[in-house]
């Protein structure tokens, strides 16, 4: 019995490591580059008129901000199934990444009270700004500037 104890313990440790590694892989959808990036998280819904108005602005801003290590991602406020969410995003002409529920869970954001709402997250996933309601491009640039970010090729 005493001989089995360390073996059992080793198995348990290996099992724990395996579970942890699996969870890490499963819950780590963001790339390594993302870990150093600021994130703009835009909550939208298909029925939200001001959401639809600001989405072209985010589409246009997305590739520009990427040069400054700022990533724009979207969240379907309605929590539709993933395939439906992606179809809606496509129908709405959203050209930036739409987060899955698992990806959203990692960010630990509280669902907003108003649509649209846009969060600015630091690379450490801290909420640095919460922008409630429809935003203009200048609103977004101003929010980034207030965090001391210098934007390239504006």
């Amino acid at each position, binding site marked *: 019995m005493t001989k089995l104890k360390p073996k059992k313990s080793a198995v348990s440790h290996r099992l724990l490591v395996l579970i942890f590694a699996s969870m890490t892989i499963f819950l780590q959808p963001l790339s390594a580059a993302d870990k150093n990036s600021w994130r703009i998280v835009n909550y939208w*819904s*298909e*029925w*939200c*008129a*001001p*959401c*639809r108005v600001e989405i072209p602005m985010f589409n246009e801003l997305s590739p520009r901000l990427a040069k400054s290590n700022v990533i724009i991602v979207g969240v379907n*406020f*309605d*929590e539709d199934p993933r395939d439906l969410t992606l179809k809606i995003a496509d*129908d709405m002409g959203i050209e930036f990444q739409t987060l899955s529920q698992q990806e959203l869970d990692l960010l630990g954001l*509280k*669902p907003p*009270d*108003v*649509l*649209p*709402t846009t969060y600015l997250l630091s690379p450490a996933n801290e909420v640095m700004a*919460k922008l*409630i*309601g*429809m935003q203009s491009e200048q609103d977004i640039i101003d929010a980034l500037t207030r965090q001391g970010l210098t934007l390239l090729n504006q």
Partner: protein
Amino acid sequence: MKKPINIPIVALFVTLFAWSFGVTSGATAQSQLQNLPSPAPSNSSLSRVVANESGEIYLSWVSQDAGQATLAYSRLSSEGWNTPKVISQGSDWFVNWADFPVLSVDSSGMVAHWLQTSAQGTYDYDIRARFYSRNSQAWTNPKTVHTDGISAEHGFVSMLPLDDGTTLITWLDGRETKRGDTPGAMTLRAGVFDKAGTVVKEWELDHRVCDCCQTSSAMTEKGPIVVYRDRTAQEVRDIFTTHLIDGVWTSPKPIHNDNWQIAGCPVNGPSVAAKNNRVAVAWFSAKDDTPKVQLVMSNDNGLSFSEPLVVETPNTNGRVGTAILDSGSIVVSWIDTTNAARIMLSRYDTNGKFLGHTEVARSSESRRSGFPIIEAVGNSVFITWTDISSVPQVKVARIDY
């Protein structure tokens, strides 16, 4: 040696015992909660509970299966829920957690609506309704409530049976948003419909309202009252009310100046209840990003209101309901987000004195949990909600005060 009583453990035991029976106590009053068996199937949601003049309870819901949505209802009798009956089915519905079917019942019949997508526009949908007459014992064919013929957003319906067997239907109407080069705002409209589904009268009640909040209506001694979220040119989105008195709608006015200014959609409409000359309105706001559920009361049919009582702040995401008991007490339903979300009822006496909270059920901040709906019968409140802890299913409970 006799062990001393462990007070904390005894207190915990008593609390758990009370909780197991669904009994919670407020400062001065108690309630008894009874979970009723649900007539709704798995994969059901978007439920509403409504009573007719006799106090008979009806439950409606939407179930979804293989891309098809079904609107059904059941009546609660002394033997339990009657066999559910289907009102309508479709594969082209706009099924939404915040904007969902209403069932209205009175002694002469029923009216129910659902939202059907328009062919011409991706985000456009029509309000379709069927009308049931007890005389003919039949539902009409589906009718479109609004007569604009414009492919736009139409929804957030409330219904109110009128004494002559007609029904007042209120809705948000996006026809002005599709007007030429200078589109207008979402409007609030209302119409009176007979049991054949024919519009008897129709009005525009407000030319500029919030796009995505529920409307609510109730009957006072002076006539119908409608509450909704307004939208000013400066994007202030406070709660407004208008009355139909002697056939004329009063000018919309705020029930309170929250001055909540946002260029966005709160998706959190107000709820009104009325009994005789008494009116209660509960609503959600989040000025300065501080969520708040408030309640105002009126003793003059809603022509004037008390200063607001704060039901909860800041640990709430709203989703309110309002009911008035025969005792005169007012009950407000709301979502508590302190830890895991909970569906709560808060009760106030006729003077606005707080009488106690009742926790109805654990819930979720998720949109899929929808909006709890309450209805008063006598000194009881019936409440329905969607449990999403596993496969979504409509739940219903009764709370006796």
